[in-house]
């Protein structure tokens, strides 16, 4: 187990370097960021040169990358164009997005798995068909439509919620945005769980458990569900990274000042430091989440052992 974890951690290094390098190059290809700082006019050349020097943009790209990575390892993610340190931006943005992600994941787990179990056990019944149809609709409607629609109905027409989330972004304010963010994944989780449950219901160990005379509740939670959850856990694990980085649309609609907002603004303003910094952290989150998922397999399925 320990050796496995170490091996996985070592594998992360090339992935990490590759991902950051790619992002760094992509942002650089977009052109000179200083030019956008002076509005619809040309920056005066002297100030532009001075700014380039200050942000290190006058050096060749490989050198910029090396300096940047060197700084990152000492915890310095650089400074955004508005004079704020990127770590400061992160300290305000990440807590918000993490809360949003937690709400979304909770929705996926609670609603998604429950619906999946119910439909899996009642395959072919009206409940199953009904939920299947609903998930089909949810998957096919883009997030921004669901988001704007809910915002308009709940926020403006019925006045149940505020259409935008305040700066503190507390958990109760994030319920609706979290649901919107989770909606598509939620539908996938339902379908995955359903298929998995339906398949395992006919497996030998379940039949044995039933034959042993175990109560149905115990058969489902201990034997059936535990084994059926393996693909679902993989999905949810990888989804954590996707939700955190992919919240741009939801965050825009509900005016949440999280990671998506900072990334969007960073890209528009071609702020290499902000974009690379945030993506670096997201890459790390993604890698760690994947590792945790793999370790969870062993917990869920006793047959899996890591040497």
């Amino acid at each position, binding site marked *: 187990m320990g050796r496995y974890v170490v091996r996985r951690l070592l594998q992360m290094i090339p992935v990490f370097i590759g991902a950051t390098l790619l992002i760094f190059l992509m942002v650089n290809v977009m052109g000179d960021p200083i030019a956008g700082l002076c*509005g619809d006019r040309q920056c*005066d050349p002297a100030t532009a040169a001075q700014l380039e020097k200050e942000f290190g943009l006058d050096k060749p790209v490989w050198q910029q990358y090396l300096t940047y990575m060197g700084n990152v390892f000492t915890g310095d993610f650089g400074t955004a164009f508005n004079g*704020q340190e990127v770590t400061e931006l992160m300290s305000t943005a990440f807590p918000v997005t993490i809360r949003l992600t937690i709400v979304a994941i909770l929705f996926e787990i609670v609603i998604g798995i429950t619906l999946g179990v119910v439909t899996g056990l009642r395959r072919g019944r009206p409940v199953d068909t009904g939920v299947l149809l609903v998930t089909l609709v949810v998957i096919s409607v883009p997030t921004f439509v669901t988001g704007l629609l809910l915002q308009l109905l709940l926020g403006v027409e019925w006045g149940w919620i505020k259409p935008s989330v305040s700066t503190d972004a507390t958990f109760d304010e994030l319920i609706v945005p979290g649901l919107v963010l989770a909606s598509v994944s939620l539908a996938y989780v339902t379908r995955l769980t359903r298929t998995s449950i339906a398949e395992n219901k006919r497996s030998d160990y379940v039949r044995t458990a039933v034959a042993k005379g175990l109560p149905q509740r115990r058969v489902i939670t201990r034997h059936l569900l535990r084994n059926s959850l393996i693909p679902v856990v993989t999905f949810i694990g990888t989804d954590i990274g996707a939700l955190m980085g992919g919240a741009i649309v939801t965050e825009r609609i509900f005016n949440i000042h999280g990671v998506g907002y900072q990334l969007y603004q960073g890209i528009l303003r071609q702020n290499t430091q902000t974009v690379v910094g945030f993506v670096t952290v997201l890459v790390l989150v993604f890698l760690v989440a994947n590792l945790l998922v793999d370790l969870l397999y062993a917990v869920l399925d006793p047959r899996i052992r890591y040497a």
Partner: protein
Amino acid sequence: MRGATHAKWAACAVAVALAATACGGDDSDSGSGTGSDSGAVLSSSWGDPQNPLEPANTNEVQGGKVLDMIFRSLKKYDPETGEAEDMLAESIETTDSQNFTITIKDWTFSNGEKVTAKSFVDAWNYGASLKNNQKNAYFFGYIEGYDKTHPEDGSKQSADTLSGLKVVDDKTFTVKLSQKFSTFPETLGYPAFAPLPQAFFDDHDAWLSKPVGNGPYAIDSYAKGSQMSLRAWDAYPGEDKAQNGGVDLKVYTDNNTAYTDLMAGNLDLVDDVPASQLQNVQADLGDRYLNTPAGIIQTLAFPFYDDDWNKAGMEKVRTGLSRAIDREQITETIFQKTRTPATDWTSPVLGEDGGFKEGLCGDACEYDADAAKRLIEEGGGLPGGQVKITYNADTGSHKEWVDAVCNSINNALDNERACVGNPVGTFADFRSQITDHKMSGPFRAGWQMDYPLIQNFLQPLYYTNASSNDGKWSNKEFDDLVDQANAESDTAKAIGLFQDAEEVVRDNMAAIPLWYQNGSAGYSERLSDVRLNPFSVPVYNEIKVG
């Protein structure tokens, strides 16, 4: 755009505190009953400023909005007429349009410090000094000694202060310009010329995290990137005291969300109505929707560094293109009349006296398909048989109007392929392509005035090698007329000369004027006396709540 809370969780704590006070404020509002409440706070939409909030470093509307509330300069532009009126200035005197003696009134900063001649001189020196990276440094370019504090080639500056600025006593200082510039006093309302308190220089980081100024509002708290709370400053010495208790500026990523919040009663004032809502805005807000002229003109500029566009006869092609654009139809269908077809190169906010001359463009801006076709043929046809209009596709619904302009040109010329749009992904990339002279055809050029003077609509854009002369157009006749106008001390005569210069722009069609842009805003039923100034910023201090 901004920075003092380096502690990781400080920003969050501030945000919580903000929410708490805001809630408290709401309660007292509802309890006050009828009539306007001078203590009530309104909320307004905001965008995250792009640069640190220093007066000489803020060049866009969002940061300008804040500076407009917390700073007062020597002059202030009248929200209605755009005329520069004395604010802190007791008098600005000159005999030769080059040496000015400025006397200031009794005034204090909101931290109690006195505003003295030194506050101005220090602030201007700071703005002009290359090492401070101030993006508006060029505003001080007319002052003697600027070439020393801000060498054009970026070499090391040989002086830290402008030799043209001298403090005479506490209330008086003199300015010596490097050339004659008769309308110099009228430029002094621009925020870059604001005075700065000693605190700005003593502890710069602390000042940036909570700027202190001398305007009708003082900053109560500032959570960067999310919200700024401004409160009326009770001891404000000026006459334009705030008529409300304060303003909470909330950052919105998307102006659609701000509009939805306004509809839901969650926000009081939106100063940028999204294009997609223009069709509903009358029904939604009725007379609580403002659509008034702002000092913004949109044009198509040309790359004069490209020989194809600069050879003899091309002025006919450019004029032909101008006549192939049906401005009337585009402003009506695409912009729902939030733009007005342009008939000169300035803006209606200047007023007739200020140099705006309706119809100065004449036939050259009138849609006429036959004339367009003839002119382009006479001029030798479109370079390469096709024009590509370059624009940035990330903001401002530029794609829609560029496509419409191209359609109009294609229809007028009976040629499906005469004009195509050429989108560039981001504004920054668009600007850097322009700076690198990579344009191969006309490109989008917008100009928002810095101060309401005809000079500001002409010199920075068309004077040889001027700061915003993106197309690198150069014309000796134009330059001479502008020089003469700047040296002319009689305002009416100066404006006449500027208009002569504008006619040179027309005859050469240095840029195609498209339309004048309006400022738009919508507000809740709680507010009254809302209006926009010529810079399309709400006049916050006049707004009454209740």
